[in-house]
């Protein structure tokens, strides 16, 4: 896919592909995904008995989990230094009237295109992006309370564990949905892999996006 897109000289079909993500956005996504993957895998090894029996080495797994968790927000923070990334965050932040239509369509399971108007990001992607950012920070905060136990009062530690456990389960499910939807849309994946998508896909999935 990558090879073909790059090998194609622009003069054959100049507007066949439109630019969706720059280098910064792609690398931020890649590194965040990798770190999140490590967090989820090590969490499974600490939490699910069958995995724990397979892997053991509890102390090492705990260390890897803690480190990948603390580093998880770093790619996004570095991304903030780049204009292209901040522009995309702006898109994710702003909700227009069409987003309300999209959300209603999603809730009603209305699959017609007219029920799902979207700009560069659809309303679902916006909600997901902002929620996972907030959830990651909650995981970071509760994780630090569990890690540096002497810094927090007695009650807080148990409470932090409770929130960390339940939010982990929720994130696991939501992340599964995120990955599942990406698996169902090869062109969306190509967008994050190569940076560009077909004009036809852009028109169909993001009709209000003016690239």
């Amino acid at each position: 896919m990558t090879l073909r897109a790059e090998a194609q000289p622009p003069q054959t079909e100049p507007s066949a592909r439109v630019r969706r993500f720059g280098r910064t956005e792609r690398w931020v996504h890649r590194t965040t995904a990798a770190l999140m993957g490590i967090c989820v895998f090590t969490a499974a090894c600490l939490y699910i008995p069958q995995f724990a029996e397979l892997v053991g080495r509890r102390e090492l797994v705990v260390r890897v989990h803690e480190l990948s968790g603390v580093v998880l927000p770093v790619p996004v923070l570095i991304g903030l230094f780049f204009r292209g990334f901040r522009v995309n965050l702006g898109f994710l932040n702003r909700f227009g009237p069409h987003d309300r239509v999209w959300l209603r369509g999603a809730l009603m399971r209305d699959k017609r295109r007219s029920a799902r108007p979207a700009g560069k990001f659809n309303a679902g992607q916006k909600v997901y992006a902002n929620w996972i950012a907030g959830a990651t920070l909650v995981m970071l905060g509760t994780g630090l309370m569990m890690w540096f136990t002497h810094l927090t009062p007695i009650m807080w530690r148990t409470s932090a564990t409770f929130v960390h456990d339940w939010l982990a389960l929720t994130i696991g499910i939501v992340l599964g949905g995120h990955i599942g939807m990406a698996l169902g849309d090869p062109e969306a994946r190509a967008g994050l892999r190569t940076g560009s998508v077909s004009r036809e896909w852009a028109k169909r999935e993001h009709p209000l996006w003016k690239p």
Partner: protein
Amino acid sequence: MNPEQPEPEVAEKAEGRPLGRRVLLGTLGLGALGVVTAPVLQKGMEGVLGALSGKDPTGLTGLLPNGGGFRYYSVTASVPHKNAANYRLTIDGLVDKPTSYTLADLRALPQTRLVKDVQCVTGWRVPGTPFEGVRLSRLLDAAGVRAKAGAVRFTCFDGAYTESLTLDQARRSDILVALRMQDKPLGHDHGGPVRLYVAPMYFYKSAKWLSGITVTEHVKPGYWEDRGYDVDAWVGKSNGRDDDPTS
């Protein structure tokens, strides 16, 4: 980038309300609220899940937080399996008669059965779990503890885990060298064939895969205690926790 393609239209960004930020901050706020209300939520959740897990043939509720049941923790990559043929428990150190017990030897001694809650320092608690085995005090008395002894150190055949108790603690009647758990022979995953069972303390004191008991002069902190856990691990009175006592 293709120079013909214009920058992403700023208009789409500028119009619309900044609701994304609110979703993010709202999630953060809910997280904080969760931490504050956790003690209440946790009690309710334990009740519901405890009732559910009793009628759950799939065992999936066991994977939910506070879903009940035991969790497998091992500090090493793999633990050798021992059985009646090759298992040995040695007792040495400051004793008159260093001894080595086989599994059959231990089974031949008088057995004590205790049914109490198990409380892990990470939060999970399993109610009313039967443990059965030989009182540690009986093994210590049989070996003849010398006068200057003050503590007992436990080693395990996983090759890494260690624990210890003061001699006074070790002589309590609710501390067993356990051979059975939940009225079944101790399986490998639960630390079988023989584990320590320290009823009144957090479960990390109940060393799995017990293979050695050494009587010493002073307490030497065990594996997790070198990593910050309390040596005197009374349930509800240590590790900054306030769980109900188990024994």
